[in-house]
């Protein structure tokens, strides 16, 4: 199936939304779970989109932008891989094989986009001098278009030229030993994402909690909701009992009372999260 004009237009729009999401990092429309699902919906194969989205989401679990450090790009990777997998009737494993090189390319593109956005910043400086509110608003929002297009243009080109025979021929060039290897690797590529999260949060004295989670998961069939609740309970108890959080102004006993009510209310909020 080659794509219809309407499908190509919808892919363009979704790619724009996904590209904007990748820089905003607010709505999460750049995450595989959302982007792959939307593309699957447009291409009439929601199920494949959702499954590929779930698979890539787990691989990308720890991909995050901290400060000015740039992670691999999930927006372009999700969109291109979903189009190729659905149009070319490829396996989820082939989708992963396509997605990862594209994520590397997307990373380069977004770094480039974030560099040229400096020009918009400078334009806004000038408009501030003239007290032109409207123009400052436009500078800010227009910068979003660069990020939208850096995903939408490659996606548009792919969706115009893609055809099943081409995708199959292209992927047939990859030897089977490589595709099997990629399928095997996709089982443990997730660890890179886990490591990124661990490095951000893993203060040494809190690492025991990581190992407890690991061991409990190895010997039980608890699902993630259970782990979330147990983790929250452990966190609350730890903070309640931690002498570090006793304020020193008062006597020891009145402190114990104050802390027993204090942290509760705060951490309830966290439980809701």
């Amino acid at each position, binding site marked *: 199936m080659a794509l219809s004009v309407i499908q190509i237009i919808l892919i363009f729009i979704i790619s724009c939304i996904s590209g904007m999401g990748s820089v905003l990092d607010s709505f999460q429309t750049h995450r595989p779970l959302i982007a792959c699902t939307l593309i699957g919906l447009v291409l009439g194969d929601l199920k494949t989109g959702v499954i590929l*989205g*779930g698979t890539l*989401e787990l691989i990308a679990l720890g991909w995050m932008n901290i400060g000015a450090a740039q992670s691999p790009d999930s927006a372009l990777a999700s969109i291109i891989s979903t189009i190729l997998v659905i149009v070319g009737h490829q396996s989820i494993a082939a989708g992963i094989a396509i997605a990862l090189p594209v994520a590397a390319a997307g990373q380069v593109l977004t770094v480039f986009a974030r560099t040229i956005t400096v020009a918009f*910043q400078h334009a806004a400086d000038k408009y501030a001098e003239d007290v032109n509110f409207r123009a400052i608003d436009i500078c800010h929002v227009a910068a979003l278009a660069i990020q939208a297009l850096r995903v939408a243009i490659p996606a548009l080109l792919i969706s115009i030229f893609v055809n099943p025979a081409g995708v199959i021929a292209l992927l047939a060039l990859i030897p089977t030993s490589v595709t099997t290897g990629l399928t095997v690797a996709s089982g443990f590529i997730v660890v890179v994402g886990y490591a990124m999260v661990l490095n951000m949060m893993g203060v040494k004295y809190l690492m025991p909690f990581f190992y407890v989670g690991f061991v409990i*998961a190895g010997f039980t069939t608890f699902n*993630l909701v259970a782990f979330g609740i147990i983790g929250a309970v452990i966190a609350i108890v730890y903070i309640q009992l931690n002498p570090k959080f006793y304020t020193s102004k008062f006597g020891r006993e009145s402190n114990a009372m104050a802390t027993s009510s204090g942290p509760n209310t705060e951490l309830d909020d966290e439980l809701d999260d």
Partner: protein
Amino acid sequence: MIKENNNEKQISKKLTKGDRVNMFIRSNLQQASYNYERIHALGFCFDMIPAIKRLYTTKEERRAALKRHLVFFNVTPALTGPILGITAAMEETKANGAAIEGSSINSLKVGLMGPLAGVGDPIMWGTLRPITAALGASIALTGNVMGAILFFVSFNAVRLALLWFGLEYGYEKGLDVVKDLAGNALQKLTEGASILGLFVMGALVSKWTTINVPLIVSKTPGPNGKVVITTVQNILDQLLPGILALGLTLLMCKLLKKKISPIVLIFMLFAVGIIGSMLGILK
């Protein structure tokens, strides 16, 4: 401080709820003009525009305010709220005649950036997103679209709540927030979120990583005549399920700390998978 001002002068300038809602909506686009020179500088100015329009009338005041908020700014986007709120409260006080230097507004912003990003990154990227995304993904793997919807709705509900209530909290308490932060509330929150995140991450390492080493260690005839095959993986699973995944994760942590980029590590693992499966070590 703000209320006193209101009592003294009837004509005092005050942000309306509409202004704050406008700022809240704008703050969803915080990173639209993310750039390597000043990160969110333009974004912060964009968020502040409704306040600047309301509070200042002369061109000189407006120009000064705009320039004041076009300086370097960076925080976890979901935690922009409280800083915006406090800044708006200070601008309001200043607009009503209090002797607040523009530079002190900026140094307050800078002072809040670090602690709030320090609590925001572990909460948003280390806890909330991995948990909601892993939950959504586990449902999505069965082909159920609810996984995607659940992730989108739950993540954004928390994020929007943080933005709006953060802004209102910052605006209402103004400088008192600094007093709140001086206690150990933020540290408690950071540690609590980190514990939850680390615990769940431990579970993910064990449950959602697949490594299989099918090398055969022994073949012994079982009691019913069938041959019992023991592989390296069988032995490892008896020892501690997921032990290889744990080792690999810790190795990646080390390599990342040596400034090797994640994408390089991903391709390295690709190579490991291809070579391993060719040699029959991995399956």
